[in-house]
């Protein structure tokens, strides 16, 4: 049994097939999901988090079929995500952003300070969220997702906008989340991060699953190089 299992998911936008019959799974630990731009990574996240209905296929969480459930129901089952194009609540302060998430799971609001400190943006707590730098906003989305205490965490390019030191700190955080028994799925273009922290990697290309394996297997895979370089 896997924490997350995606079975034969296809997403069509009119004539275009963005995700084509993809089957993959993710277990507790860090799973990488990589591929060139337009490979269908974010669309797959939308399907898993319930924001988009797949044209066909199923999504299973701990072997239970959640395909027909809405996004808020999936959140209550332990799915959380961040967004590639930021979706922070710009009118609220950074702290309030986290409080909204805590309250939706009936957790005490005072945990917000702890979560902000954990991702390293405590200094921005009282700033209005649409004024903070991109890197801090990405970490805010992470803190907000963690506020729901997820079993399955989907991170969409979390490191873009972070400098080297922040990226290292973020990698350390990934290790901790993994040690807490959470399943983290990471869409990322920073290959050092992917190769250094992932237990398992799936490669998408043009909507299809190209291959899966450990980071070292992926590194030596011919097709992956072609997809990225060719």
């Amino acid at each position, binding site marked *: 049994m896997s924490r997350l299992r995606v079975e034969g998911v296809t997403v069509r936008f009119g004539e275009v097939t963005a995700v084509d019959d993809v089957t993959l799974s993710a277990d507790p630990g860090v799973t990488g999901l990589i591929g060139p731009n337009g490979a269908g990574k974010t669309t797959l996240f*939308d399907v898993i*988090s*319930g*924001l*988009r209905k797949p044209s066909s296929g199923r999504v299973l969480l701990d072997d239970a079929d959640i395909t027909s459930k*809405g*996004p*808020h129901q*999936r*959140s*209550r089952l332990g*799915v*959380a*995500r961040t*967004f590639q*194009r*930021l*979706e*922070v*609540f*710009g*009118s*609220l302060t950074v702290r*309030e*952003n986290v*409080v*909204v*998430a805590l*309250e*939706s*799971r009936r957790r005490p609001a005072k945990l917000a300070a702890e979560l902000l400190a954990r991702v390293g943006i405590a200094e921005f707590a009282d700033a*209005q*969220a*649409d004024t903070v730098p991109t890197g801090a*906003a990405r970490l805010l*989305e992470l803190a*907000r*997702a963690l*506020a*729901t205490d997820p079993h399955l965490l989907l991170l969409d390019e979390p490191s873009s906008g972070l400098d080297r030191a922040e990226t290292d700190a973020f990698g350390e955080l990934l290790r901790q989340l993994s040690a807490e028994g959470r399943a983290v799925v990471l869409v990322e273009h920073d290959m050092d991060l992917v190769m250094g922290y992932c237990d398992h990697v799936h490669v998408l290309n043009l909507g299809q699953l190209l291959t899966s394996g450990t980071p070292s297997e992926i590194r030596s895979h011919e097709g992956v190089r072609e997809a990225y370089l060719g």
Partner: protein
Amino acid sequence: MTALLAYTVFGLVTGGAYAVVAGGLVLTYSTSKVFNVGHGAIGMVMAFLYWELAENRGLPQWLALLIVVGGCAPLFGLVIERFVMRRLAGAPVGITLVAGVGVLVGLIGAAQVIWPPQARPVRPFLDQYGIHIGQSFVSGHDLVTLACAVLVAGGLYLLLNRTRTGLAMRACVDAPELAALYGTRPHRLSALSWAIGSALAALGGILLTPVVQLDYVTMTLLVITAYTAALVGRLRSLPWTFVGALGLGLVQSYAVAYLPSSPFWIAFRAAIPALLLFVVLLAMPQSPLRIGGVRGSRGVAVPGGLATGVGMALFMGVVVALALLVDGVVAGQLALGLVFGIVLLSMVLLTGYGGVVSLGQFTFVGVGAVTVARLESSSPLALVAGAVVAAAIGALIALTALRVSGLYLALATLGFAQLMDKLVLQSPIAFGVRGSLQVPRLFESATAQLLLAAGVFALVGAGVLAVRRGRLGRRMIAVKDSSAACATLGVNVRWIRVWVFSLSAAIAGLAGGLFAQLRETVAASDFQLFNNLPLLLFAVIAGVTSVSGAALGGMLLMLLPVLQSGFPAFAGVAVVLLGVAAAGLSRDPNGLVSWFFRAWSWRRA
């Protein structure tokens, strides 16, 4: 059988005129991405202008038609596009809607100034010709209408599918930035679409004058009919819009033929477009949650619990002092201003915090008023009952329109207001068509009513601020900024909306009870659809994000008719000014009061 045939022809004729109006609406919307709420109002003003030229000045009909449809209307469209709408490109739906409502109200004001109310018969086109179908006579005007509809359909098809400009227009719909890269000029296309759209509104309006009479409001509300037709084509597809328009015309014609002609059913006919609007909305697919980009807005500072308490105590002190100083008439006026202020508080919650633009908020006031009037009781419990009934109806409308958001939702509230006006408020269970109801007051004296209104305003204002500081307030704002993120955090976005809608309706209903008590006599005409629009404008002008904005807006709303009766010449001008101010201020939702706040913080800094 021949009767059926005749009614089918009449239906197609009316539908053809609707199609002309709706085609203009779709062309403008799909090219410029701004929904023109004032589309019907443009048609109305241009129909008046046509009357001026053809009937008053005695120009030949064809020349008057050419001048209005070929000259004045497109020119007017260009002016609106250039000076109001272009600045609003890419602005949130709420802002463009308010600007559109500003244009609409301004146009009605202008029409009332230039053409004071009187009967204005308009000769139909080719009235010496016509053909007989069985017992019925299809006039030359009807044939002209049909011919115009066919010409417009063909012309728009050729424009969009056979010309470079049309291709560029269609490209602009999908990706204006990209189209610009390929050498098209979105501004020019958008201007062109406004010119053609206005011309079609004018043509449709003129064709319909023998049917609907030259009237400020009826013709303005043609936008609901056109919108319903356009919705069949999802505001994009012209062929489906034409199908929708013809369908609407047929349904209305058959309703005239086959429904009984009791007062209720006559009102029902007028409500058909709004009713069909809901049917179409219910059949719409769920609008996807919008993803992409940080959205935020800067409201005025929210005072804490203590500051709210002090502020409300000060406010009550001022009102008590005023109550001691002024006479009964002025006290009554001030009380009315505060009651309007309470209505605006309901919009602070819904529009200011929740980001939902409602064009039907005054209808909930009517619901509260009817409830209190029908209970025939002066007990405070009657006021509570008014709030509860309004809340229930608010929840109902939110549940009905749950699938749609943004523009669709705002226009659904307009349809709802029309429906309630025609089918409920004018029906025997409420006021009756011409009837009015007596309402016993909770307190006899105007001064006591003023203190009651002030007390309720203070409590509701403090309540609204408490909501803003609390859990529901945070969630409302979170849903406004990103409903997609909210959903993935476990917030049930739909329930939040139902809550906000019914809470806001409850406040408006409560105000309705107070309004009815203050007036002592209320009628359906107090709560007409059209009364919603100045309400929205004043809310935005004064500031829809703060309690002080609501108080200021309420007072202004109360002063408007006072000024108008004091200076009759000023009546229409005031409405024009109101429209202009709203169109200009719509970019800053914090409104006039935010200037005071800014001056205050600058002084302290």
